[in-house]
């Protein structure tokens, strides 16, 4: 044991300790505490009572919560789209075209821009008299102004688009790192065997990018289900319940209506759902990658 303390693992743990401590206090403890909380009617300001599984039964009869789950699942549809586009972007900016560095920077700017700023910019662009309507009217694509964020048939998809627009650069950078780790001789060998550009992508790039695809898909799925900022800023879940996502609903129940017990139960349900989806993503992406042995 004593020897172990002097080992490499001790050094590793020492480096990880500050971060782990932070996570323990602000992440792991709240999650664990959320479990007993979900069995109460805790609201901070009134007496707390144990309610057993009432919050959970109420959740599955709560029409709005079920809608919010559905909307969150619909939101997950952007994951494959984001992955495909960002892989293509990564392949493009990985080429030796002059000026490519400028594109890398340009694609990455939305990632480092605050979501509040992004949301406000898009709210102006998509306003009734915004640039989007102006251009589409001029081009004859639409015949009258569309309230993109106030119309139930478009609001959710517009929000998905904004999420995608902001996230693309982030995933592109991850894929770019993955691309640069693929040995050039593999491409050489494939070319010698007569593979064209498309075949190179399908048979060399994509299989070797699988670990990156797994990671990006996983965090993208989690991000899609947890989506909050853009929805809360732009629509607050409206019109009606068209864009009500689970995070927004949990936030409203907890921090606006002080039903912390109920909100904890909803949070746990959504957590389990994300856990299940994560397992699914893992199952679908088991093999591939560059092995260092």
């Amino acid at each position: 044991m004593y020897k172990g303390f002097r080992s490499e693992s001790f050094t590793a743990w020492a480096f990880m300790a500050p971060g782990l401590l932070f996570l323990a206090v602000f992440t792991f403890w709240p999650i664990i505490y959320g479990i007993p909380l979900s069995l109460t009617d805790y609201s901070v300001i009134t007496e707390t009572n144990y309610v057993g599984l009432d919050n959970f039964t109420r959740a599955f009869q709560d029409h709005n919560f079920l809608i919010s789950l559905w909307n969150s699942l619909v939101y997950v549809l952007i994951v494959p789209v984001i992955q495909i586009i960002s892989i293509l972007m990564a392949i493009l900016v990985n080429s030796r075209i002059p000026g490519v560095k400028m594109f890398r920077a340009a694609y990455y700017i939305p990632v480092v821009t605050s979501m509040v700023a992004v949301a406000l910019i898009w709210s102006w662009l998509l306003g009734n008299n915004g640039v989007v309507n102006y251009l589409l009217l001029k081009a004859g694509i639409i015949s009258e102004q569309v309230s993109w964020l106030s119309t139930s048939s478009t609001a959710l998809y517009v929000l998905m688009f904004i999420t995608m627009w902001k996230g693309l650069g982030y995933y592109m950078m991850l894929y770019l790192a993955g691309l640069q780790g693929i040995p050039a001789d593999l491409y050489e060998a494939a070319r010698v065997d007569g593979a064209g550009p498309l075949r190179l992508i399908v048979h060399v790039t994509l299989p070797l990018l699988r670990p990156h695809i797994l990671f990006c898909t996983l965090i993208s799925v989690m991000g899609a289900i947890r989506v909050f900022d853009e929805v809360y800023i732009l629509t607050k879940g409206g019109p009606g319940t068209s864009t009500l996502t689970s995070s927004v609903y949990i936030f409203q129940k907890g921090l606006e209506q002080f039903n912390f017990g109920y909100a904890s139960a909803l949070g746990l349900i959504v957590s389990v759902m994300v856990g299940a989806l994560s397992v699914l993503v893992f199952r679908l992406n088991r093999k591939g990658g560059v092995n260092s042995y």
Partner: protein
Amino acid sequence: MGTNRKGFTVSLLLTMSMLLAACGGNGNTKGTPDAGSTGEPGTGAEATAAAEPVKLEFWTIALQPTFNDYFNNLITQYEDSHPGVTVEWKDYPYDAISQRLLTSTASGKSPDVVNLNTEFASQLGSKGALLNLSEYLTDEQAKSYFEGIYNSTVFDGKAYALPWYTGTEVLFMNKKLVEKAGLDPANPPQTREELVEWARQVHEKTGAAGYAQQLVSKLFPIDGISILNEDKTAAAFNTPEAEAMITQMRDLMKEGVVLKEDADFSKQIQYFSGEQVAFQLSGPTFINFIKTSAPDVYKNTIAVPLPTGKANLRLSNSMNLVVPQKSKNPQQAVEFAAFLTNAENQTAFSKAANTLPSSKASIQDPFFTESDGSLEAEAKVASSQSLDKATDYMVGVPSAADINSALARGLQEILMNGADIKETLNKVEKEVNTIISQGS
């Protein structure tokens, strides 16, 4: 780079943690309200000299540093007349005060006097988290405030807040558009029906819409439709009158007379600034926004009393002072709140902050009746003259926030998503009744 079980477990844990990690702050603000008033220090409740030194913690919303002199002076006055009592004044941003109050309550360190808007005060009051002030106030003190505003936070005969500064909505008109439509701004519309006619004419003659509004539950009480029944045990809004009101709203949106939009305050500012609407129904705080965003429109804007709906009331948006149930010095806290909100101090604050008072006596001051012709003064006079009809409409049950959001969603479903009116009202009624039966 194969996956391993530990990594998998860690990512699952992280997933859950990310999900449950609380996201940012609290939205839900309503522009700064305007004035209120209340009892007098020491009237009725004799000024209590504290046997042991008492330290009162007093919280306000966004009043430092602008009003430091005003409050420091009042606090000194109060401490001089209450030996042994000291007041510690803290000020928080609008968005932070509710979270601060929750966290301090949770940690057992409650402040003694807190400035809250009516919505939050009624929410906390109905959940039993605030002191029942009726036990401390004399009749005379309670009656010194405008009834509508004072009663906004009275539930089951218990008063949970002292009204302070307030603001009532007025009608702002874009004079240029109104005149272009052949209407006379000197004879403004008096009722909602007249306002609709004006809006229609503006739309026909100028192409601009009449006004934009937010689809919120208060649209029901404005038209005299109660949200809940008398004893607050069931929904009462599913009536032919509500159907008629919503039908009219839907038709007006179709015509373009009212913008087909669920427009929050910031969007309303945009529409008025861009001259896409001719009217704006809101409190005087609106002026500062158009002054900066559209100076030309500001020069062209006039303010008149707000046309009333069928209920003949005007909604106010008040700030209050409350004493949390867990305050350790309730007697001194109530006295201090009453002192801050008495007529004299409210009048002084209104002059300093350009707000309206909620104390009846304050309104006699020439400050509230004389106008120098500026938009600010017109709005002040117009709104102060309607304080007697003002009320902060509150549902007044612990689950009010739930009920309000159910109604807002229903209105959005009908007006923005084209859902059937009767069907949606039935659905929302059922939802509200469920919320009431769950009771939290």
